[in-house]
């Protein structure tokens, strides 16, 4: 593949930015499969907010594994600021190469283990990460600027500060992974002792890394917020509370800036929208405590309003385009696909209700159930299919009413 010139690249970028989700996933897979991405990497740049919502499995490479636990902190170089508790994306390549060279054969062994694996292979990430992250932490602590750091245009001073933070974070990455796994997909509360140990060690390693560590904790398990103030007393407790404030500010900024909230809900499929709404809602609930300062609470309120509006818009569009429109089609209905859509709509609605009370959804859901009834009345749908769709959309009682 020859590299497109800058005009061609801009045109391609515009085209790609408007591409449908499945198209975006295919583009990313194609670029990921290239041995040398070069200019093609720039094609992905404008898609990153959508990728964050779509979360397609990506090939597990050394750099991706190394930065996997730090993903919530990574921002574009243009957005990166030294005081904003984040890591510029441009640092990934040079740092990963630096670590890989320093590790030598150990890095090669890890690369062999992750070959042909993807970011969906969570067991492999945990297993190989447990080898890589502590080693990387030691390498980054040892000093020495990566050879390719110049490419970041950030200067060696920035590297030193970033490397110290990354070393502290990577040192605790395996413990963080263990803590997350321990919640059994959210069925169990996060372990307060594990959280306390992670924060203590991160603070001891490099105190300025503490807000970033808390960002990582909250991004993975928002419920950790409740355990943070209790995790420490004395001077460390003061530091943790201050760091929590900075972490909250960092996370809220991310949701505030550049339609962060809207993009997460509007991008990706309905299932992604429901999951994103659930995560943001949970995070906002955790950060909206009595102890939060009035400015932060106002901030949260504003984001909650935007989240509510985004959910309503996504729900309305999903209902119309993915459920009602196929119902009007004369083609044979793909009932399982309609059921999946109905389920995703209900998940989005259920999450939205926890954010704002969810006014207006019932009316839309009833309208959908009526449309299904009309379709069934015309003999274009079996009773059992109608019952199941109404059950998902309006609940079992409404569905049983069709049978009794």
């Amino acid at each position, binding site marked *: 593949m020859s590299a497109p010139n800058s005009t061609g690249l801009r045109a391609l970028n515009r085209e790609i930015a408007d591409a449908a989700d499945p198209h975006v996933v295919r583009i990313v897979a194609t670029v990921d499969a290239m041995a040398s991405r070069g200019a093609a990497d720039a094609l992905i740049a404008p898609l990153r907010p959508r990728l964050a919502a779509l979360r397609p499995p990506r090939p597990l490479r050394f750099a991706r594994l190394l930065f996997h636990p730090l993903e919530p902190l990574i921002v574009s170089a243009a957005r990166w600021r030294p005081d904003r508790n984040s890591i510029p994306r441009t640092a990934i390549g040079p740092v990963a190469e630096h670590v890989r060279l320093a590790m030598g054969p150990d890095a090669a062994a890890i690369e062999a283990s992750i070959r042909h694996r993807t970011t969906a292979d969570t067991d492999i990430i945990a297993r190989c990460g447990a080898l890589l992250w502590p080693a990387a932490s030691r390498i980054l602590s040892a000093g020495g600027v990566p050879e390719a750091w110049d490419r970041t245009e950030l200067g060696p001073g920035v590297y030193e500060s970033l490397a110290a933070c990354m070393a502290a974070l990577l040192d605790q990455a395996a413990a963080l992974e263990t803590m997350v796994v321990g919640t059994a997909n959210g*069925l169990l509360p996060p372990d307060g002792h594990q959280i306390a140990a992670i924060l203590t060690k991160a603070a001891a390693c490099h105190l300025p890394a503490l807000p970033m560590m808390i960002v990582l904790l909250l991004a993975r398990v928002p419920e950790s917020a409740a355990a943070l103030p209790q995790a420490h007393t004395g001077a460390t407790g003061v530091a943790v509370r201050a760091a929590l404030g900075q972490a909250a500010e960092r996370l809220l900024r991310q949701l505030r800036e550049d339609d962060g909230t809207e993009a997460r809900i509007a991008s990706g499929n309905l299932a992604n929208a429901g999951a994103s709404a659930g995560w943001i809602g949970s995070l906002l609930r955790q950060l909206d405590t009595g102890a939060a300062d009035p400015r932060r609470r106002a901030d949260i309120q504003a984001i909650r309003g935007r989240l509510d509006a985004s959910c309503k818009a996504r729900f309305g569009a999903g209902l119309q385009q993915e459920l009602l429109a196929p119902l009007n089609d004369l083609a044979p209905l793909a009932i*399982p696909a309609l059921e999946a859509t109905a389920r995703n709509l209900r998940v989005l609605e259920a999450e939205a209700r926890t954010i704002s009370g969810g006014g207006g959804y019932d009316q839309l859901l009833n309208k959908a159930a009526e449309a299904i009834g009309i379709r069934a009345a015309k003999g274009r749908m079996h009773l059992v299919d109608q019952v199941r769709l109404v059950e998902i959309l309006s609940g079992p009682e409404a569905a049983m009413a069709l049978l009794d």
Partner: protein
Amino acid sequence: MPFTTPLLAGARVRLGSKNAPELVIPNPSGGRGVYIVQWPGVRALCSPTVHDTMLFRRLIGLTRIDPCSIREAALAVALQGYAGTEATTAAARTIEADRRLGLRHHFQLLTALLQQVNPDGYSGPVAPERTPEFDRRASNVLHAIAPAFHCSAAHLATGLDALGEAFAPVGMMADGRPTRVRRLLGKLGGTRDSVALWLDAAPANDIGGLGRGIISSMAVAHRVGTALLTATQAALADPAGLLRHWVANPTDSIAKAARCDWLLDGWEGVCLLWHPTDCDASRRAALLEMAQMVPVLPREISEWTDIPIPDPVMDPSARVVSQNDEWRRGAAAFALIRRNEALRAMSE
């Protein structure tokens, strides 16, 4: 009960007063104790799916509730489509497989009877498939032995039908093909080994000993199940004796055939929860759900086998105190219902 409502996971059914079915539901909070409720009480506790309501309705009016009648009811409801299209297809497949297995087993039982009684003095093997000659010989045998059984040949034929159907899930020992009970024992043993391997590799993944408790219960169920299977199959080696017992006490004969089903009742659901897991977090989540669904072993087990049963296995109190009930309600419930429907499609 193979319910799809998340909050009804691990629920059992029994006949209450006035022969009305009532449910025994594990404490939804995960703590010790159970709720014993009739259907209106279930509706106060949660909003049961249409599938579950239709399933429960099929149990009303039954004079006997056992694993077989529940399985038949569940297959019928799945066949109607209330657990989704995958479960409908699977139910149709299972019902057809049951029918074929029943026919095959009836034929095998009849064949064994012919070989055992051998009234024509013919000691060679009978035809591998049903032929007019085979039917003539079978009829001759039944007429020949009927006087000694103090009943008609037609009654004996009815008995053979009933026994063939009842013992079909167990299968003849000589028939190496996997029957439902054998497959279930295989799943149980496989799951026990898989959980054990996982915990051996990373003991910290056990949650307060839940995993070891589950393995222990599985091991007992597997051991007793294997012994019961052997004993039940041994009874099939004497088809004339089996038939004589059926004539004397048909209920007891059929109950003997159902012992494996009683023992293994509920274990398939537990095993199915484990097998779709693909990472440690999911496996831990599965452990929590499995612990809530570990079946209670039937009290009669001590009469069925000499294998000593540890007391904790007879009273599985490994209840789970999770964060709260939220993981089974609200948005999460939709995914769980879908998952439960997928498990219905995977069950036999």
